[in-house]
């Protein structure tokens, strides 16, 4: 620290002064003058420059030489300083990368399919089981933190083992000569990110995807696992319409791998710049403020994704990460219907409830969220049957205890259950109707 500090300190307090040179003696006699002519010369057409310099420098040869040499230098500078200073680790292990066809353990690399914040992903063939897998290469350090690794295996593999159709199946976690590999089901399709690039979605499509994601969250939360990084990049839409949520528990594994205390508390630490830079848009307020998080953080991030599907834009945006964070913490999102008038009231209400800044005001469980979403995708019978007032008068459950612990209970409050049943009854009546019609036309 020492010397650099005091040197720097003496300069900064002039930050708010005008952009004018402080003194004009240098080897540069009249910096202000040079600057004016230099800027003006740049504005001139190339062909006019000579004439312009003749005129503005009069007979001051030194001035002219100075300006001309700066102009020449600018021409030569091109990319000079345009890339910010970069730091690379001196470690030789950097840059693990596989060639197509290369054999790694019992996998043969077919081709790279992406690079995430967590590492490179390849399409590969499992030579033992003769099936295609997605092979993710994780940072070597995940092997060093035994506690965290154990936790990851317990969480991610456990969630995967639930065989939920909307949760990506992990086949194997392997360590090949210090290189951690994660082999999972290979999904043919596109990420929600890619789909969103085409703009906002139909309400039905978005609701369908939302139901599947919420269903995945519900199952994972019930198993005690928080995703922590719900975003369009982590949601795959298979070509047949099935949605797969990727990377449960992975954010925690590849987060701060050094500090042991964060492995036991529920805080999120952002030691990997890529992590925070990439995902600020989908952070919950509690993540953004490095507060402790629980399953309700996923519900907030889910709300952002749902909002973006319907409106074509994330609710909290900004030029820089810090702008985005400020919005997440402070700003009330614009009404989603101002971007998409087809969004029904009930869906708007669901989004608003997901995006409450205070976790206590949000859906407390993915189960409750799922019930509301499902009632929405059914004909409106159910939600009309139960007046709003009655729904709101239901006492809130006490969630001051850890919400994860309450997840094992039955689906949400009684009213949701009632509505769900009513919804099912409506579906039943509909089916009866169809059967009757079928009978009428074809059997008779």
């Amino acid at each position, binding site marked *: 620290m020492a010397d650099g500090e005091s040197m720097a300190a003496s300069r900064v307090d002039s930050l708010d002064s005008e952009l004018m040179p402080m003194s004009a003696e240098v080897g540069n006699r009249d910096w202000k003058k040079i600057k004016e002519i230099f800027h003006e010369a740049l504005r001139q057409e190339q062909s006019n420059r000579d004439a312009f310099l003749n005129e503005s420098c009069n007979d001051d040869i030194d001035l002219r030489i100075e300006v001309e040499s700066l102009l020449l230098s600018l021409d030569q500078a091109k990319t000079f300083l345009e890339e910010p200073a970069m730091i690379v680790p001196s470690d030789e292990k950097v840059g693990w990368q596989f060639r197509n066809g290369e054999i790694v353990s019992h996998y043969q690399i077919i081709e790279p399919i992406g690079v995430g914040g967590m590492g490179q992903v390849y399409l590969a063939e499992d030579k033992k089981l003769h099936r295609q897998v997605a092979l993710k290469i994780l940072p070597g350090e995940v092997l060093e933190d035994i506690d965290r690794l154990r936790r990851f295996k317990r969480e991610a593999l456990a969630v995967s083992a639930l065989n939920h159709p909307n949760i990506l199946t992990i086949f194997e976690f392997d360590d090949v000569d210090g290189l951690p590999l994660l082999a999972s089901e290979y999904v043919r399709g596109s990420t929600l990110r890619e789909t969103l690039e085409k703009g906002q979605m139909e309400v039905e499509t978005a609701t369908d995807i939302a139901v599947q994601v919420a269903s995945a969250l519900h199952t994972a939360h019930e198993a005690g696992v928080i995703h922590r990084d719900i975003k369009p990049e982590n949601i795959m839409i298979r070509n047949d319409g099935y949605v797969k949520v990727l990377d449960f528990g992975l954010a925690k594994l590849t987060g701060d791998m050094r500090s042991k205390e964060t492995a036991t508390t529920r805080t999120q630490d952002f030691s990997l710049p890529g992590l925070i830079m990439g995902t600020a848009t989908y952070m919950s307020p509690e993540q953004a403020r490095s507060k402790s998080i629980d399953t309700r953080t996923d519900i907030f991030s889910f709300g952002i994704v749902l909002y973006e599907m319907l409106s074509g834009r994330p609710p909290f945006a900004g030029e820089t990460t810090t702008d985005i964070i400020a919005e997440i*913490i402070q700003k009330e999102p614009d009404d989603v219907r101002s971007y998409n008038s087809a969004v029904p009231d009930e869906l708007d209400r669901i989004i608003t409830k997901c995006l409450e800044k205070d976790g206590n005001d949000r859906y407390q469980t993915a189960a409750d969220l799922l019930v509301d979403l499902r009632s929405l995708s059914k004909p409106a019978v159910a939600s009309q049957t139960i007046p709003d007032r009655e729904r709101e008068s239901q006492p809130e459950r006490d969630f001051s205890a850890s919400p994860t612990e309450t997840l094992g209970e039955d689906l949400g409050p009684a009213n949701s259950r009632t509505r769900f049943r009513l919804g099912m009854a409506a579906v039943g009546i509909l089916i009866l109707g169809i059967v009757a019609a079928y009978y009428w036309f074809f059997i008779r």
Partner: protein
Amino acid sequence: MIEKRQDSHRVTALLREWTGGSSAAMDELLPYVYDELRRRAARYLRHERINHTLQPTALVHEAYLKLVDQESVEWKDRGHFFAVAAQAMRRILVDHAKHKNRAKRGGPEADLQLDAEFEVPTVENDIDIEALDAALSRLASFDPNQERLVELRYFAGLSLEETAKAMDISRATAAREWQMAKAWLHRELTR
């Protein structure tokens, strides 16, 4: 956790004092920011294997999030924070370049003794950081604002827009000054 909160209160308060006109606040601020950036750089480099490079802009934004209480700062405070962070980044990179050059002169064995806490990153591009640092200090003697601009753009990796905001000048002014600073520095380094 508690420690973090105290830091963030202190840094936020210092930023406000500075905006209120106290230059002593600035003296106190730099060490906080410097230490935070240095720690983050070192930690990052210990863990990173796959995405080769570390971008200063990521570090600076993270340090900002960690050190500054988001809810109670204003635009001007933010500009001040980035100015300090850019200086700190410059210091970190230059110190490192010095160590490294010294190690080179001292042969391969000296390399092993490099600053153990800060794990020897390499600054990657063809720019001689020590020479750039010296030229930048000469530039500062007659145009301190251009020096600051270069720090924000090159050492902290801010975009032109962010830099303009941090310096409270228009984007056009920032672009013009940047061109001139580039021209002048390029000439100095190729003399």
